């Protein structure tokens, strides 16, 4: 019988780490992420892994770097301000091609912001996060099940492409409880970790350094671009929902995509032809998929719990060929930090947009 449990998104991330053979976790408390830390403090050592709480997020991500260099599957988790603090080392790991998985349970920002839900980190994580023009893969979970599965996939991607993979959730996904099938996912064979820190000569390490382009800066970036192109070709993930005859396409991720799904069903009941495209990889973004789907659409409605960040990638994909509308943070049901975007509000926006209100 399948191991089925009621788990919050944060606990499901912890289980994903255990099932994904994560053997080291370094983290620091921050709401709304701390349950990941608390879960792994108890459970990871039982699964043969190491848990350590650090003095801040800079130490946490730097320990991730050190631990990953031993060839160990290593993870950290934090929330928005913590992601900012980590960026120097994330950039360093991108430069040195070090695999790592970092979970961002997004809270409201900018600044310390609020501990409640939001999607205000989209631009930061999808554009790498720090200095130097690198990229990180970003996987956006929209359920506890996906939290568990995508963390496992993140470890595979990190090892496959030797880079940081972010798993992006939000306070709503992190704190909501749902049934999860705890299954170990197999994503295929991985290359040997011939880059781990060994030392030279009889220790069998690589005398060339971690990348062979010490004096060829152009070559270095060409290599990185080649890797990014390969990822864009092979790893794009998305879900399309009731899209067959859709004339209105909603684009949403994370908790908002759940609301958007509800909105699609409500709108369909009223005879409106609405579908949803939910990017699962936020980088690489499903640009071509969206472009193709938009051929049949009259309207695109981006719904996101921010002032308009995802909408930039949608506009970039569609190049002005289909009108792109945005229902942003002003679509929340309350103007304080407890506000969330409900399906009814999305339907209202759709009606206004297509002129049936």
């Amino acid at each position: 019988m399948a191991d089925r449990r009621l788990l919050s998104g944060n606990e499901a991330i912890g289980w994903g780490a255990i099932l994904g053979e994560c053997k080291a976790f370094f983290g620091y408390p921050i709401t709304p992420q701390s349950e990941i830390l608390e879960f792994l403090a108890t459970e990871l050592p039982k699964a043969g892994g190491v848990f350590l709480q650090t003095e801040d997020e800079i130490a946490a991500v730097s320990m991730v770097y050190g631990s990953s260099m031993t060839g160990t599957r290593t993870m950290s988790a934090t929330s928005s301000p913590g992601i900012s603090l980590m960026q120097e080392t994330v950039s360093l790991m991108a430069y040195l091609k070090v695999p790592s998985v970092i979970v961002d349970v997004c809270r409201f920002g900018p600044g310390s912001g609020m501990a409640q839900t939001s999607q205000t980190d989209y631009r930061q994580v999808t554009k790498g996060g720090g200095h130097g023009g690198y990229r990180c893969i970003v996987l956006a979970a929209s359920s506890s099940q996906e939290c568990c599965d995508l963390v496992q996939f993140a470890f595979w991607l990190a090892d496959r492409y030797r880079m940081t993979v972010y798993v992006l959730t939000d306070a709503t996904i992190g704190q909501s409880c749902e049934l999860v099938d705890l299954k170990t996912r197999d994503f295929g064979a991985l290359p040997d970790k011939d880059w781990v820190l060994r030392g030279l000569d009889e220790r069998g390490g690589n005398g060339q350094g971690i990348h062979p382009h010490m004096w060829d800066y152009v070559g270095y970036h060409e290599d990185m671009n080649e890797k990014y192109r390969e990822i864009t070709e092979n790893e794009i993930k998305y879900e399309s929902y009731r899209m067959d005859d859709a004339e209105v396409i909603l684009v949403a991720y994370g908790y908002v995509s759940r609301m958007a799904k509800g909105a699609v069903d409500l709108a369909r009941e009223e005879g409106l032809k609405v579908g949803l495209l939910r990017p699962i990889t936020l980088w690489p973004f499903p640009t071509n998929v969206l472009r193709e789907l938009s051929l049949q659409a009259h309207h695109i409605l981006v719904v996101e719990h921010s002032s308009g960040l995802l909408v930039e990638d949608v506009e970039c994909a569609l190049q002005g060929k289909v009108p792109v509308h945005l229902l942003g943070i002003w679509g929340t049901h309350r103007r304080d930090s407890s506000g969330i975007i409900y399906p009814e509000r999305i339907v209202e926006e759709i009606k206004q947009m297509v002129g049936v209100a």
Partner: protein
Amino acid sequence: MVLNLEPISVERDLLAPGHRLCAGCAETIVVRQILHAVGEPVIVASSTGCLEVATSPYPYTSWRVPWIHSAFENAASTISGVETMYRALVKRGKIEDKGLKFVVFAGDGATYDIGLQFISGAMERGHRFLYVCLNNEAYMNTGIQRSSATPFGAWTTTSPVGKETPGKTQHRKDITAIFAAHNIPFVAQAAPHAWRDLMSKAKKAIAADGPSFINVIVPCQRGWRYAPGDTIELSRLAVDTCVWSLYEVVDGEWRLNYYPNPKKPVTDWLKSQGRFQHLLKPENKHVVDILQAEVDRQWTKLLERCKVS
């Protein structure tokens, strides 16, 4: 230093009621005591933590004085910026010197862990400010995770209790001594039940010509697991068991402010709180022994430093 309770009791609190801190929280008691002692004009900075969150839920504030919030790690740097500009403007004759005072309130996470380098920098540069650590011995604002102020053997959500571990497996760091090693004019430890001692220290600290630091233990009923009405008693017990000693370091000279008589066993302290209940089981007696030995070692060291025999 003469401190009369009667005028203080009718003086307006600079931290207003109506904040959202828990019942029985020692933080507001300490903040009020210190602000009464320091007096106006004063500018307060807070790092992220219980006090900040509970006194400034947008768009409200409980602060009757100018108050600035920074991120988690850098309140000491922020107050350094404010203090520097105040001094510069006074020096250039742009503003009148009204004897403005500068105070930071921060928790133990912000002080012992994430903010240590920034406090150290501010102290080395010599800004004239008082840094108060409201030390409840864990990350209470995020839900009771261990910090480097958490004592050995204590349960927190990230120092779990089980077959393999009896709570936290490291001793807390002696941050007061670390700041004393910065050779700043005034460093002290205090506790809210000893209000006269605490307020005298705040007065000395703010009068010092340079940085000062006071580490105050603030019992936390949620994190320590005790009844909210026992806060002041727990503060007293911490001092009577030598788990928390009252002393000051004035211009490098260590002085003991209170010698408990009798010095109570650490088990009295452990029995008073839920976070230590597992230590009372017979199989954890060795943990209690380690804790008692550490308390005794620190106490002996303190007596030596203070030249008390």
